[in-house]
C-alpha cells in the first residue's frame, strides 16, 4: 500500500512537472484559431487583447491596444511586429497588423499582411474565413469592389 502511495505521488509529481512546462511559442502558434482574433464588424474591431495567447505575445498585444486607443498607429505596429518576431507564423498577429495598416491608410500592405496570415491559416477554416472578410475590406479600400464582393461571396458560400 505504502509503495502504491509513493508511486502515485511520484506519478503525480511527474505529471505536475510536465504540466508546468510552459508551452513554446511555436506550439501555441500552431493552435491559433478564430478565438484568438478580436471581434470585428466592418469598420470596427474589438480589443487587440481578446483571446488566449502566448504570454509574451499577449503582453505585446496589451501594449498595442494601449497605443491603438490613443490612435498611435505606428507605435501599435511596432508592438505587433515585435509579436510577429516571436511567433512569425501566427495569423492572429497578421490580422491585427493588417487592421492597423488599414487605419494608417495603407490598404495595399494590409492586403499583403492578410495574404501572409492566410498562408498559415488552415484552408476553409473559420480562421481563414475571418481573415478573408477583413481582406475584402482592404480590397474595397483600394477600389477593387468586384474582387471584394467575390471574396465575400466565396466566404459566405
Amino acid at each position, binding site marked *: 500500500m505504502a509503495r502504491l502511495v509513493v508511486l502515485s505521488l511520484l506519478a503525480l509529481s511527474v505529471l505536475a512537472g510536465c504540466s508546468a*512546462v*510552459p*508551452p*513554446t*511559442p*511555436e*506550439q*501555441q502558434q500552431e493552435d491559433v484559431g478564430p478565438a484568438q482574433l478580436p471581434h470585428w464588424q466592418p469598420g470596427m474591431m474589438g480589443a487587440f487583447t481578446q483571446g488566449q495567447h*502566448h*504570454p*509574451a505575445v*499577449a*503582453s*505585446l498585444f496589451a*501594449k498595442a491596444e494601449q497605443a491603438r486607443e490613443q490612435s498611435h498607429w*505606428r*507605435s501599435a*505596429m*511596432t*508592438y*505587433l*511586429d*515585435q509579436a*510577429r*518576431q*516571436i511567433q*512569425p*507564423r501566427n495569423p492572429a498577429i497578421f490580422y491585427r*497588423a493588417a487592421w492597423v495598416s488599414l487605419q494608417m491608410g495603407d490598404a495595399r*500592405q494590409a492586403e*499583403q*499582411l492578410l*495574404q*501572409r496570415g*492566410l*498562408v498559415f491559416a*488552415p*484552408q476553409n477554416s473559420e480562421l481563414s474565413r475571418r481573415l478573408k472578410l477583413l481582406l475584402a475590406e482592404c480590397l474595397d479600400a483600394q477600389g477593387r469592389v468586384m474582387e471584394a464582393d467575390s471574396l465575400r461571396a466565396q466566404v459566405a458560400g
Partner: protein
Amino acid sequence: MAARKKTSARKSNAAPQSRLRIAFSWLLRLAIVGMVALAVWLVYLDAQVRQQFDGKKWTLPAKVYARPLSLYPGQLLSAEQLQAELKWADYRESRGADRPGRYYRDGNRWIIYRRAFPFWDGREPARRIEVELRDDRVYRLRENNTDAALIRMEPQYIGGIFPSHNEDRELVRLDDVPPALVAALIVTEDKAFFEHWGISFRGIARAMVANVKAGRFVQGGSTLTQQLVKNFFLTNKRTLARKIQEAFMALLLELHYSKEEILQAYLNEVYLGQAGRRSINGFGLAARFYFGKSVKELDLGEMATLVGLVKGASYYNPRRNPERAKERRDLILGLMSENNIISDAQRMRAQGKPLLTADSNRAGQREYPAFLELARKQLQRDYRLEDLQTEGLHIFTTLDPWMQHAVEAAAQRQLNALESRSATLKNKLETAAVITSVDGGEVRALLGSRRAEFFGFNRALAAQRAIGSLAKPVVYLTALESGRYHWGSLIDDRPVSVSGPGGQLWQPQNYDHKSHGKIPMVDGLARSLNQATARLGMTIGLGQVADTFTRLGLQADIPPYPSILLGAISLSPFEVAGMYQTIASQGFVMPLRTIEAVTTASGDTLSSYSLTGEQRFDPAMMQWLRYGLEQVAERGTARRLTQHLAAPLAAKTGTTDDQRDAWLAGFDNRHLGVIWVGRDDNKPMPFTGSSAALPIWLDTFRTAGSEPLPAATALTMAPVNDQGQLVGKGCRGTLYPFISSRLPQQLTECEEVTLPEQKEEKKSWLDWLF
C-alpha cells in the same frame, strides 16, 4: 653768424624733435589701428567662441545597436548563448547581482540586473530578473517574485556612423562624473583651475623652468581652458600666433561661461584613445571603452588611469603600454592622496590593484563593418548621411550577435582547414555570408570578408559572382508551376547541345562527366545534374525561367540565354539571399531588412519599420519546391548537412565553371543562410560548393542552433510508377509528394493515371534537336 649758428642749432634740435613727434604720431596711429584691429579680432573671436560653445558643441555620430535579446517563456536560448550575450554586454558576475550590469548564475537559474535603456518604444528602468533555463529554452522568467511575460536585454553597440574625423563620444553631465575623477583631473592638469581667468602665468613660468631644467619639452603650461580651446576651436599647429589666439579665446571663454560649464565641455571633448578608425573622446566613452562600464561605476584606479591618458592617450594606453599606464596611474593616485582627494589607505589599496581593462575586441566595443555598411545604405533611403553622422541618432538593427559570431568563427575555422590542404592556397580564399530570418527577412548576420572587422571590400554586397547551380531550383520551380511536371516525372539526362548566336555551341556536362539517362525529376535537383536541368529548362522555356527569377524578387536583368539555366548569372550573395528568401518564406517577396527603428538622441522615435512584402507565390507550390531542396540535403549534394543536423533541412549547393565559386544556400525552420567561398582574383580552387561553402554553413548552424523544417501541410504523398506517372493509392510505385488540393480526384486503383495537364503536353522542338 652766431645768430645763424643759433638758428641752425635750434633748427637741428627742432628736426629730431619733429621727427620724434612724427614717429610718435605714427606710432600712436598705428597703435590705434592695432587696437581697433585687435578689438575687431577679439569681437570676431568672441562671436566664434560664443557661437560654437552655445550651439551644438559636437557632431554626434549615430550609434548603431544590435537587436535586443528578448527573453520570454518557451524561447530557444542555450546557457552558452546567454553567457556570451551577457559577457558581450559587459555584465559582470557577482554574487547577489545587486546592481545594474551584474548577474549571478546558479546552475540553470540566472539572476540578471538589467540596466536601464532607452528602447525605441520607450525608456525602460533597470530591472532585476530571474531566468531559468531548461533544455535550451527559457523555462521561467520572473521579476519581483512574479512571472514575467517578456523582458528585453539592452542591445549591444555595434558601431557608429561617423563623420570624416571619426570622433566618437558618449556625452556625460558633470553631475554624472564622480567628483574624485574631476578633482584628480584638476590636480594633475591644472591645479589653479578655479583661480585663473583662462591662462595661468604661474603655470607658464613653472613649465618654462621645468623645460629649461630638463633641456627639452617636459611640461606644458596650458590650463584646462586653453586645452579645451585648442581641441575645440583650433588646429594642432604649434605657432606663436595660434598660441596667442588660444590665450585670448581662453580668456573669452572664461568671461562668458562658468567653470562648471567649461569643465563639463572638457570632460566630453578630450581625446582619450583610438579604436581602429574610431577616435575615443571624452570620459564617458573612455570608461565604456577601456573598462566596459559607465563613468559612474569607475573605481579609483580606473579614474586615475583615464586621467593619465590626458597627457598622452597612445603613450599611456593601458592595453598597449600597461607598465607605463600603471606608473602614471600610481603617480596620479599619489597626487590625489597628497591633495586629500583620497585617503592614504585608499591610495595604497588602489595602487595595489593590477591594471585590468576590458577586452578591446569584445562584442560591445568592436564594430561590424559589413553589416554597418548595409544598414547605412538602407538608412540613407530615409535619412541624409549628414544627419546620420552628426545628430546622435540611435539606430536599432536586426543584427543577431550570436549568429554573427557563429558565422565569423565558422568562416575562420573552415577556411583555415581548407587552406591547410594546399600550401599555395594560404590566405587566398575569401568568403561572404548572409544570414536572415526565414519569415521576416531580417538580416541576422552579414560577413563581407574572412576578416570580419575589416572596413574594406564587402563581398556580401559588392562581389558579383556566377551563381552556378544555385539557379537550378528556379528551373525546377518553373517546371512544377507549368503543371506538366511533378518530382517523380522522368526527365532525360543526356548530352545537350544548343547553338548560340555566332554559332557557338553550349554543351554543358555533368560534374562526373557522365550521362544518367531517364531519371526522376527530383534526382536532377538533388544530384545537381547539369544535362537534365538544361534539357528541362529548354523544354519549359527560357522566357518562363527568366520570368521566375524576376518573380522571386531578383532585380538584376536576366537575359533569356540557355546558360542562365545553370547559373551563368553574376549576383552578390545578398541578391542570392533575397531570391532564396522568397523560397524559404513560402513565396513572400520581401526586402531584406536591417533597420528596426531610429530614435533621436533624446529617445523620440523617428521611424520604425515592420514587415512589408508581397505574397507572390502559392505557398503550396513553395512547399512542393522545398521537397526537392530537402532531398538535396537528405541524399544529394548537401547530404552532409543532415548527417550532423536534424532533418528536414532545405539546401542547394553551387559550383561554377572551373570551380571558381563555391556556394551553399539553405534554410532551416528559423534561418536562411547563403555562403560564398572563392578567390578575389577569380582563379579556380580545388573545391566545390559541397566541400568549401557547406562546411561554413554547417558549422554556423551547429553553433547558433538549428531547428528542422516543419511538415509540409499542403502536400500528400502518392505513388508514381516506373514511367513517372501518378497512380492510385495502394499501387506499386515510389511515393512522391503532390499538392493535396491539386491531386486528381478520380484515381482508379492501380491504373496508370496521367495528370490532366500532362495530356496536353506536346513534345518540345528541342526533343527533335537532341
